[in-house]
């Protein structure tokens, strides 16, 4: 008897799966309704929710550091025995929700998935160390070791209110450690794709920590071109020329270009190529960034086919030829900014090499003459420095990391994509910056 019933039911289901419409019409009655748990993940969910330890049980939130389209970063202190009084930066990802009253699950963004999965595998002293990830109440909290400083803050300190150059040892050690971290990423087939001073943290002990892997991705065996995944990568001022020329396939060399820009910025305390970004038009076509390219040409000179043989293969090559020709001025730029070291200038040339195939790679860069000559780079970039940098300021008006109070910063957007609005980062309490937000596009 029992078996017959079961089989009957199964035939119904089978029939239904073949043609649900006709089935419903034929029987004119609803399917047997199972318990409420049928479509949900209960009772599993109840069990998990009961056993989860809240982020607030382990960490005391001291205030928030920064906010952006990705979410918000909080400063926190360990509360449990094994992390007592350690400092952390907790990144809370924005949850896309339909309305401001209730947060709904809408799918984790590609950017969050990348950052979570990569950070769980990465382990290097010059990459921001992930402590743990807490998934709680529809939100993702990534707990990182705390970086008291970052290069943007340090550059600001040295240029305001008066101009005081960064000591050579600090500068050299910082670049060396960035390249060490980058070399580790590239050897593990990870592109960072958003290197800039704001994303380079420095700990209290003067150790560089490359942070924000929200745009990073693996590049071994891609199923589709890197371009089709993300149309625009890297904050405009640090974007390599091949990207500006519309490259569909690009290489780790784009990260080395950004390091070149950072080196120049640490030397002159100003962004090297401070172009203006052409905004996307409504057609969702990626615009040609003429102004940014112009800024590069003004300093590095117009690239030639002779020096960059694949130049005419880039989609925007025709646009490039419309721009006035410039000679190379990098050496003059270097000298006018007080640079005297030949090998440092050489490294700048090697990193800002137009042809990505010829650009210095991260591993080789560690043996560069500038690093092998005295003074050699050191583990503590603040060693022998007379400068004392202020602590990272925090906003204490928002300690509510779980978001019990309704928070209007959460916008609405669905699906898998990374945030697609220009990301103006407000570095809370660090003065007003004209720093450009990075842009991500569907």
């Amino acid at each position, binding site marked *: 008897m029992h078996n017959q019933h*079961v*089989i009957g*039911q*199964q035939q119904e*289901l*089978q029939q*239904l*799966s073949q043609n*649900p419409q006709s089935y419903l019409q034929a029987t004119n009655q609803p*399917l*047997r309704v*199972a*318990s409420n*748990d*049928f*479509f*949900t*993940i209960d*009772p*599993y*969910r*109840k*069990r*998990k929710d009961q056993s989860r330890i809240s982020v607030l049980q382990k960490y005391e939130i001291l205030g928030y550091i920064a906010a952006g389209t990705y979410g918000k970063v909080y400063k926190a202190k360990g509360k449990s025995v094994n992390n007592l009084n350690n400092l952390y930066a907790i990144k809370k990802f924005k949850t896309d929700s339909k309305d401001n009253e209730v947060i*709904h*699950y*809408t*799918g*984790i963004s*590609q950017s969050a*998935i990348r950052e*979570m*999965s*990569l950070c*769980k*595998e*990465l*382990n290097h002293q010059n990459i921001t160390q992930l402590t743990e*990830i807490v*998934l709680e109440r*529809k939100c993702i909290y990534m707990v990182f070791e705390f970086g008291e400083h970052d290069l943007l803050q340090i550059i600001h300190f040295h240029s305001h209110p008066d101009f005081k150059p960064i000591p050579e040892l600090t500068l050299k050690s910082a670049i060396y450690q960035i390249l060490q971290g980058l070399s580790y990423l590239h*050897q*593990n*087939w*990870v592109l960072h794709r958003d290197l800039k001073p704001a994303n380079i943290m420095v700990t209290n002990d003067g150790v560089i920590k490359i942070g924000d892997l929200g745009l990073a*991705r*693996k590049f*071994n*065996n*891609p*199923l*589709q071109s890197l371009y089709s*995944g993300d149309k625009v990568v890297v904050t405009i001022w640090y974007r390599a020329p091949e990207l500006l020329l519309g490259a569909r396939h690009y290489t780790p060399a784009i990260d080395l270009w950004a390091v070149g820009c950072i080196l120049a910025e640490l030397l002159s305390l100003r962004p090297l190529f401070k172009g203006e970004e052409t905004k996307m038009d409504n057609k969702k076509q990626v615009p040609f960034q003429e102004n940014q390219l112009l800024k590069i040409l003004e300093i590095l000179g117009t690239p030639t086919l002779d020096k960059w043989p694949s130049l005419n293969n880039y989609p925007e090559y025709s646009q490039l030829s419309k721009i006035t020709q410039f000679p190379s001025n990098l050496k003059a730029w270097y000298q006018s900014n007080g640079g005297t070291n030949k090998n440092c200038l050489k490294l700048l040339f090697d990193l800002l090499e137009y042809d990505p195939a010829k650009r210095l790679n991260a591993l080789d860069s560690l043996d560069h003459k500038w690093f092998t000559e005295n003074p050699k780079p050191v583990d503590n970039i603040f060693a022998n420095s007379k400068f004392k940098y202020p602590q990272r300021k925090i906003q204490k008006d928002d300690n509510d990391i779980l978001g019990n109070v309704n928070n209007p910063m959460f916008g609405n957007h*669905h*699906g*898998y*994509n990374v945030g697609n609005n220009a990301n103006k980062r407000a570095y809370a309490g660090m003065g007003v910056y004209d720093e450009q937000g990075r842009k991500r596009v569907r």
Partner: protein
Amino acid sequence: MSANYWNSSQRNQWQFTRDELTIARNSLNTTTTTTTTYDSTIKLDINLRIYLHQLIIKLGRKLNLRQIILSTSEIYLQRFLLKVNINEINLYLLITTCIYISCKIEENPQHIRTLLSESRNCWPEFIPNDLTKLAEFEFYLIEELNCYLIIHHPYNSLIELTKIFKNDLTIDEIQSCWSIINDSYITDLHLLFPPHIIAISSIYLTLILSNDEFKLSGGDISKFSNSKIENLVRFLSISNVDLSEVIESVQELLTLYESWCYYDEIYIRNGVHNMLLNK
């Protein structure tokens, strides 16, 4: 690390011994809140695993997904079911969620609506028309996997190995290795051994199966050999690969194919549906 299996979470967090797997699975029956008194006839045995494997392929074909995406989702499925009892959740929703996440990890993201609607086309009676249910499961699945999402597969090892054995392997045989690896996700092999062991096993098994004498020898792989297999074994001994692990994998794959002969899809499907209706 993400490029190197030896430093990966796959090796350091998600590689087990057979005993560990048994203990983990046995403990599911006692610790989890199985609220229903319904005595399910369905167990996570090889038959159910073949069924789940085919569900993944079915949805994957609808979405036109690459094999590597499906393989990654099979690993998520296996790891999840090591920690959660099958009658605690909706298996069809689980499959859909595994694929949703693996598409993102393999950099071929599908919109959640696309995934949900294709999944509902496949199994309309078991997938809710509510994307928040899928997105909710994503959270719990990732939490259960402890956010370890990057997976190392045997396909790269196979490509490297076919360069070494290019004289011993025909195109058809390489294709066969590829298919054996695809099928290996039904078994526990990916929870037990490194990817290259599974790649080597697929070659070993292909060489055995392509030889008629093997069938006559009564299926004992230790007694069977020919020149191609000798080449392979010689290579293994030089390259420090654990031969006993290879033999064990080959044996497990053979067991899989034997079981497959007796696999009854309708019986399993009925069982799964009953379990769901009584959840």
